[in-house]
């Protein structure tokens, strides 16, 4: 089954002849069997070209998201209300940088260099998660990101720990272990404001939740009936759970947590469905999603400009490190 869908993609790409050698067909068969058996694929194993391409795109975009994701929160490090919150936020943002690194390393095993990937990001060719194109206007946004954005990310990422491509799965295991702290610190920060804060602080929390709720639901991607590549990802064992299933799981968990916090979600259609034992939610504005993905969100230009500036400002540091390494090597040789 994978073969058929892949051939379609290959034809679309038009980069390879549809005809295969007998040897290739045999390799393909062995690969399919391994996927069916729930085996892991390692970087040096044979894999279909489209499997490699799909993974490379997904992992590098995931890496870019971690890195760009440092920006909205990094914005608040110098203005965190207490030393404790500042230390926590620093640690969280540092974690995200680490996540980006694990993922770039996993993508590199597929044969793309770090420089190529960064170039794709900086020239706007590669995408990153739409969520990071929204602004962090108040301190409550930092808590809301931890609770909701990292919460949604965890929902998305846990199934990838069982991804058929082993280097990606291993990176994901490490990342998921660290994400839990991110979500909890966010919730904790909001809880303090809701329980011990002033009316103004409580209103600030509610206002932040209002802004982040819908973009968070969009993080799970288009509805199942509008994600044609999802089925392929499922067959390959890259994707394990569908977008809508994950989104529902997130909504169900978040509604309960919101009650503890004492905030509401900006959705008049949000109500308990006795029949299917889930929370029904309103219609998501997918035109907004596509606009933001397409580059026209509130902060797309700013985020990209910040990344490019950071890369260019760091140029002399990278050069100096390499020059130092060359010099030390020469000294040792002498």
């Amino acid at each position, binding site marked *: 089954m994978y073969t058929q869908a892949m051939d379609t993609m290959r034809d679309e790409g038009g980069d390879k002849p549809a005809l295969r050698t007998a040897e290739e067909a045999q390799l393909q068969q062995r690969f399919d069997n391994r996927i069916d058996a729930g085996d892991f694929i390692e970087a040096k194993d044979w894999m279909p070209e489209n499997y490699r391409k799909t993974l490379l795109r997904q992992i590098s975009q995931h890496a870019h998201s971690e890195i760009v994701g440092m920006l909205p929160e990094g914005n608040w490090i110098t203005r965190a209300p207490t030393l404790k919150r500042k230390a926590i936020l620093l*640690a969280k943002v540092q974690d995200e940088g680490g996540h980006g*690194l*694990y993922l770039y390393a996993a993508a*590199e095993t597929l044969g793309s260099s770090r420089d190529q990937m960064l170039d794709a990001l900086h020239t706007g060719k590669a995408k990153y998660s739409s969520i990071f194109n929204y602004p962090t206007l108040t301190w409550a946004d930092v808590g809301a990101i931890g609770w909701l954005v990292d919460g949604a990310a965890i929902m998305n990422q846990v199934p990838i720990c069982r991804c058929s491509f082993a280097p990606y799965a291993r990176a994901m295991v*490490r990342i998921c272990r660290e994400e839990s702290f991110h979500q909890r610190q966010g919730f904790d920060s909001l809880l303090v404001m809701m329980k011990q804060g002033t009316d103004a602080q409580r209103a600030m929390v509610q206002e932040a939740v209002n802004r982040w709720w819908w973009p968070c639901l969009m993080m799970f991607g288009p509805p199942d009936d509008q994600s044609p590549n999802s089925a392929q990802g499922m067959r390959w064992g890259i994707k394990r759970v569908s977008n809508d299933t994950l989104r529902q799981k997130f909504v169900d968990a978040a509604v309960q947590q919101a009650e503890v916090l004492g905030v509401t979600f900006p959705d008049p259609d949000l109500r308990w469905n006795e029949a299917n034992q889930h929370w029904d939610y309103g219609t998501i504005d997918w035109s907004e999603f596509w606009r933001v993905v397409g580059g026209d969100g509130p902060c797309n230009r700013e985020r990209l400009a910040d990344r490019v500036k950071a890369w260019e400002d760091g140029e002399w540091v990278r050069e100096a490190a*390499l020059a130092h390494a060359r010099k030390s*090597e020469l000294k040792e040789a002498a």
Partner: protein
Amino acid sequence: MWEVFVRTKAGLDHKHCGSLHAADPKMAVQMARDVYTRRQEGSSVWVVRSDQIVASDPNDKDMYFDPAEDKVYRHPTFYKLPDSVDHM
């Protein structure tokens, strides 16, 4: 590019945990600490240049490792001893 190995605590093996980019060995060790042991995951790190690692061929995996498959007598469970001494 460097491969990173971490010993999680004294007495255990160093285990491969990932890779990173660094200009020289000293920087690689520092980066390994910052990236892979932020929560006291290790008490020692090794870094090895990725291109210095020699690996077995993944395509020969079956041919290469299966000869050990039928050598069941290499396992202690192969030997069924009288009950009175079977826990030896």
